[in-house]
């Protein structure tokens, strides 16, 4: 039973990591931009939900919706006013600028919210669980996290492969210069991609704060998990990212069973093994 329980918890933890990773994967896929401030934006998302609950007195899910809308606008402005200027043949400027953003966000949040640890409270749901029989039970929040990850990925796949905006994302990603000659405004497409990514980041922030405590400085360590999930799954595929998250989550929970200090380490070891054996990840979308 303990084996089954470990696997179940690992898979559900993987849903959280998939949520961490999907925004990163989306941005890299569309504009080859590695957002080093991604983890810090998740913390911003968590604080945005917290403000909605504490200061505005909203129910937590409504606060999350408001946070999502705010993050959409923030992403659009961030990309059109700042990050679009850093994109080009050289990959260094976006790395430097998002690294700088990461530091600014961490210190800004320290100033605004202090270094206290915070938690997002789902009320009675926080400790609720669903019994599966045989002594097994899964928490409602982990289940919601996983379901949200699947829904986000279903939505993004529909958007990318069934809509005209999605085709513009894929065309711009493939050949940005040619996309412009088809009448596509790349800067606007990139701004929409970042806006969407930050909505996913807000959802990730919601569950980040609901499943564990957070403070203004935890972004970078969560960014590592997001990176690992993306790389394990393979670039360019959202389902691959989910698989990567699940593998990472499984590795961590199995590691924790062996010994508590093995939790994070086991995840890193699996990541390194995948990187050595399958440098393109387990489920890369394109072979190019």
């Amino acid at each position, binding site marked *: 039973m303990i084996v089954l329980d470990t696997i179940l918890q690992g898979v559900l933890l993987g849903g959280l990591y998939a949520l961490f990773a999907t925004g990163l994967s989306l941005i890299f896929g569309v504009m080859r931009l590695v957002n080093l401030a991604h983890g810090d934006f998740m913390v911003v998302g968590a604080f945005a939900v917290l403000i909605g609950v504490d200061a505005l007195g909203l129910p937590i899910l409504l606060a999350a919706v408001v946070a999502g809308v705010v993050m959409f606008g923030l992403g659009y402005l961030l990309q059109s006013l700042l990050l679009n200027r850093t994109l080009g043949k050289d990959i260094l400027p976006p790395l430097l600028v998002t690294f700088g953003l990461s530091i600014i966000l961490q210190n800004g949040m320290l100033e605004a919210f202090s270094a206290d640890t915070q938690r997002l409270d789902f009320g009675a749901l926080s400790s609720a669980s669903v019994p599966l029989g045989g002594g097994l039970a899964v928490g409602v929040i982990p289940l919601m996290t996983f379901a949200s990850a699947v829904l986000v990925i279903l939505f993004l796949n529909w958007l990318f492969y069934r809509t005209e905006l999605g085709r513009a994302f894929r065309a711009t990603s493939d050949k940005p210069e040619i*996309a412009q000659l*088809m009448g596509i405004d790349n800067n606007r497409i990139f701004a929409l991609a970042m806006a969407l990514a930050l909505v996913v980041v807000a959802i990730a922030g919601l569950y980040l704060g609901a499943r564990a405590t957070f403070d203004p400085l935890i972004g970078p360590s969560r960014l590592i998990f997001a990176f690992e999930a993306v790389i394990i799954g393979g670039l360019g595929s959202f389902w691959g990212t989910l698989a990567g998250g699940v593998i990472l989550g499984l590795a961590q929970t199995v590691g924790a069973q062996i010994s508590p200090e093995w939790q994070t380490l086991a995840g890193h070891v699996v990541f390194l093994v995948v990187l050595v054996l399958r440098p393109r990840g387990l489920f890369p979308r394109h072979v190019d």
Partner: protein
Amino acid sequence: MLLEIRNLRRAFGAVVVADDIMLDVAEGEALGIIGPNGAGKSSLFNLIAGRLAPDAGTIRLDSTDITRMPARKRVHAGIGRSFQIPQPFEHMTTYENVSVAACFGAGGSERAEQAHVVDVLYRTGLLSKANLPAGALSLLERKRLEMARALATKPRLLLLDEIAGGLTDAECASLIATIREVNASGTTIVWIEHVTHALLAVVTRLVAIDFGKVIGEGDPQAVMESDAVRRVYLGIEA
């Protein structure tokens, strides 16, 4: 005049790809451009389509100065082009490639452009390949896709860059028929081509370019037989 090019100049260091070019294209015309490799033909297209900025001179489309207009706005203004080396979005299907061009180039919604996309695929003979990834198309099909994407943007001026190279006689004949039909439906065509028999079957006027300069212009036969062109192509001292 649909297109008016005045004193257009562009150089890369010592290499002048457009040397004081003057060119007019009338609405509805089919104009051919010939010249040896490296003469500046594709560069001229890049200048007209906005992929390359000129050092001097002006380009007007339907009396509007488009010299500094970004490439994507020129598409909306009515300039469509195909590339000599096909540049499909390889991970998208043929249909999706054309659909992107139709929706973002011609400005309609996906639903509104659907019939137009199918029509373009039919006219370019790609309908049976609609659901294949563009990366899986043969070279000839990729060339057709270049023309299909350009047509999907509903251009007033269509720039075709060496689209007939490497075709069999039958394929070439059907391509000629397609281009004629596009021209007959009111689209102005400027066509760069080395396969002169295909070119001469369509165009009513010919321009010869060498070292970025216009060295001959006028009736196709007359230009082909002019001393300047014979000298460039055959090295004959006339």
